[in-house]
């Protein structure tokens, strides 16, 4: 069943359109910056953007910073919201269940396919933005201090390519976990309703509400538990030394959301009448 879900994911034109759009945004941004050389000053705008003019190797990190706050969660919410509700609307859910595919197995397959999508999206993003960065910004800083071709961390200390790769992988893992929390919210709603759109919008509503509450000082009491509170903590991977505190919390909070919501999805889906 997992294989079937992956085939369905990859055979769907929608998947590729989403990926193309996701990768196109950083390319467009890079094109503008490269032609005008007007990067936002350090400390303003998207993280890393000010650094990429000096070294294109850091561009994947800048691209992730562009896509993670809105673009990627929207794509994940749409896909996850569609996962069960879309099958129900299309009528294929009942045929899968009488084939028979166990309900638990179906949910697991959906989750694996969503994880695959997130990884695929980030991988595509990293590869295309790395190539874009190297092409448009070059790899070596004009006035290289220290080792040649070195990349500077956000804290100013240089990073070796091996360190950069490891930290990039760490960031990818962190973002995957955050996105799976989004997927878990949408998947849970998807087992509640037969409307894929409703499930996706519901998940997005949760995210938007969380983003607003994060900025609100009066909501400080619940702030650490909001799903989007530590979303950008992966930036800390690019500090020297790595700033672990937020990263740890940023992994723990989504993990709790994922666990609870998946359990709820499972309980709901197992006991539900399939009337679609």
């Amino acid at each position, binding site marked *: 069943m997992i*294989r079937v879900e992956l085939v369905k994911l990859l055979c*769907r034109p929608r998947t590729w359109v989403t990926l193309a759009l996701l990768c196109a945004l950083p390319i467009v941004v890079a094109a503008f910056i490269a032609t005008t050389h007007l990067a936002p000053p350090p400390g303003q705008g998207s993280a890393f953007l000010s650094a990429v003019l000096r070294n294109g190797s850091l561009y994947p990190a800048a691209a992730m910073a562009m896509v993670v706050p809105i673009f990627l969660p929207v794509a994940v919410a749409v896909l996850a919201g569609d996962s069960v509700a879309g099958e129900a609307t299309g009528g294929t859910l009942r*045929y899968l269940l009488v084939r028979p595919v166990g309900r638990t197995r179906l949910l697991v397959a959906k989750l694996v396919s969503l994880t695959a999508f997130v990884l695929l999206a980030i991988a595509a993003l990293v590869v295309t933005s790395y190539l874009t960065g190297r092409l448009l910004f070059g790899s070596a800083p004009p006035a290289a201090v220290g080792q040649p071709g070195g990349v500077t961390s956000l804290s100013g200390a240089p990073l070796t390519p091996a360190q950069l790769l490891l930290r990039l992988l760490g960031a990818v893992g962190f973002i995957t976990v955050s996105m799976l929390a989004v997927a878990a919210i949408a998947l849970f709603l998807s087992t509640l309703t037969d409307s894929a759109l409703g499930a996706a919008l519901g998940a997005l509503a949760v995210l938007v509400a969380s983003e607003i509450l994060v900025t609100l000082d009066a909501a400080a009491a619940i702030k650490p538990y909001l799903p989007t509170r530590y979303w950008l903590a992966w930036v800390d991977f690019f500090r020297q030394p790595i700033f672990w505190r937020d990263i740890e919390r940023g992994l723990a909070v989504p993990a709790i959301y994922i666990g609870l919501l998946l359990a709820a999805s499972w309980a709901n889906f197992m006991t539900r009448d399939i009337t679609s």
Partner: protein
Amino acid sequence: MIRTEAVTKRYGRVLAVDSVDLDVREGDRYGLLGPNGSGKTTLVRMLLGLVYATSGRIEVMGQPVPRRAARVLPAIGALVEGPAAYPHLSGRTNLRLVDAAGPGGGRRSRRRRVDEALERVGLAGIDRRPLKAYSLGMRQRLGLAAALLRAPRLLILDEPTNGLDPRGIREIRDLLAELNAAGTTVFLSSHLLPEVEQLCTRIGVMDRGRLVLQEDLATLTAPTGRVVVDSPDAARAVALLDGRVEARTGDRLVVRHADAAQLNATLVEQGIRVAEMAPQRPSLEEIVLSVTTSSSDRVDAPVPA
């Protein structure tokens, strides 16, 4: 094959299925009839473990459903409320995915199974067009192909000839009869009387959630002991058969008589011409209408007090 005991399904305040005792025997061609909204589809969904019964017991092939549904479902082919498939994929790819999704059967024999199922329903020559380009009839055939994919012992089909033209209906009927002759039990739910009358050997009739009739078709449509005679000399026939004519409309007489052949001989001996003559049998339509109430999709205004 299928046996239910007092199966009941309640959706909130609505009683969709009310204490149904269904009994489908191995080798039956069972037709479940009933007006729209009489609970046929809910019952079918409960048999397949999609909807959970509020109370009562369901047994399919000797196993309790939904508890052991995973054991019996691989031997069941089902079509529930119209076919469904992924619109952006071709029919063949859709069948391959269905085949791969469930248990049993190797990857190597998949192509053969898919080809055989397509051949059976008359879609052997389909190309790689996506499903959204298919006509309603083609989709229906593809749905049937999906049901036949695993050579099921039991077919549970909800409105299997929906969207097919008369020739297509005939083909599917022949296919189902052929499968049944080879040992497959066919359970069919429909509101189309002719479809059921021409295929099924046993019928059940549902009305407002209850199973109001369950009987062999042959028993139901057994001769009533009357003969219908159509004769240009109807007046003379009435005089001759004195007292045994139960009804007369124009040239048509209903005569109480056990043997049509004997009656014919008697009439002809007396020089009474007979245009048409047959033992009277109740039609399925009369039977169904006599046990069901009005359609649930008809909404009459309340009678003013």
